């Protein structure tokens, strides 16, 4: 039976083929069959994780908490210099100058990405806003968030910093960043579950050496990841503790 691998649904669509190249590279290196399953929604993916259908996952830090503390997963590596940060954006001509200008009933454009949504809500707290006092509009992509802001359907949008940077100059020119997070310690990680734990050391060594591998370099480029660095159990626990402080 092949092992099952999946990726947090917040990956950029442009990098989808990169994850398939990664999976092919990994199967050759490890000499095992691995099936890559990509999901459209976090809910569907979490259901399959809980049903034991996932053996390896590139997880967002929020799901990493459940995977490690409840399901016996262990973080192997994290991407080098890639941290999860969010920005709150408004239309360039919006009268809102600071977060404190926002009030109850603010229309927030967001995605189902738990990372960005949590960081975004924390950045709204200085305006005394919480989930009960804003109107959330959930969109499937950051481009749709930008559109809703430009059409005046929403007042502020939560966007992953990296996705914001990847928006076209044309769209970015019509938006303005109200506030940007600088958290630095929250990031995605590649984790393995109990069924692949016997390959843990081999997998870590392979991934850390990936930028030196002839084919590995190109695969990393297609995912826009510079390389991988190993994660100790304590580093993982530290990040999970930190995430716990951010979730009310």
């Amino acid at each position, binding site marked *: 039976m092949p092992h099952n691998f999946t990726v947090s649904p917040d990956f950029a669509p442009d990098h989808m083929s990169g994850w398939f190249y990664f999976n092919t590279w990994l199967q050759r290196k490890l000499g095992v069959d691995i099936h890559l399953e990509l999901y459209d929604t976090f809910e569907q993916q979490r259901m399959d994780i809980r049903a034991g259908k996932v053996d390896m996952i590139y997880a967002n830090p929020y799901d990493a908490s459940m995977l490690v503390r409840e399901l016996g997963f262990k973080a192997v590596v994290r991407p080098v210099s890639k941290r999860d940060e969010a920005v709150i954006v408004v239309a360039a001509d919006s009268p809102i100058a600071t*977060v*404190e200008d926002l009030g109850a009933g603010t229309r927030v454009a967001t995605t189902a990405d738990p990372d960005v949504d949590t960081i975004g809500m*924390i*950045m709204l*707290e*200085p*305006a*005394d806003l919480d989930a009960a006092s804003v109107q959330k509009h959930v969109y499937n992509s950051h481009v749709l968030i930008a559109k809703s802001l430009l059409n005046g359907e929403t007042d502020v949008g939560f966007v992953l910093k990296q996705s914001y940077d990847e928006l076209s100059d044309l769209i970015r020119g019509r938006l303005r960043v109200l*506030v*940007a*997070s*600088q*958290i*630095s*310690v929250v990031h995605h990680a590649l984790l393995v579950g109990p069924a692949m734990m016997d390959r843990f050391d081999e997998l870590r060594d392979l991934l850390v050496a990936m930028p030196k591998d002839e084919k590995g370099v190109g695969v990393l480029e297609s995912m826009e990841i510079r390389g991988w660095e190993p994660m100790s159990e*304590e580093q993982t*626990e*530290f990040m999970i*503790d*930190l995430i*716990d*402080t*951010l979730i*009310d």
Partner: protein
Amino acid sequence: MSDQDTGAEREVTLHYYDGSERKALIVDTEVPYPDGKLIVSRTDPQGFITHANQAFVDMSGYSREELIGANHNILRHPDMPAVAFKGLWDTVQSGQKWQGFVKNLRKDGKYYWVKATVIPNIRQGKLVGYTSVRRKPSRSKILESEALYATLK
């Protein structure tokens, strides 16, 4: 800016729970919490700092070397009532998460307000320390806390 922000300076002796004390300069000037940042620190079970992120270094005014190994009460402002910290310790020592608004003292005597969350770090069922994460509070919560803490002193 708070009504308490007069810029006045005074020297006070701070008394700590463990019986120790130190003299500190108090300057009634607020340093605004920077947008988008989290201040992160960790302590051992006794409250001695083992980890400080850059935002913590920047806002506290201490160097990282001065913070590591210091008791977390180095940040304690005399305007904070002892009962608030008792609540914090009682909560985290019982294994629960604590959240509250705290006025912190900087090395230069100025102050900054935070919304703090503290959780116990449990490893293999054992308490190994605490993680504290601070974020920007709203002005209304600061005013509420100032009024409340003044009645608790």
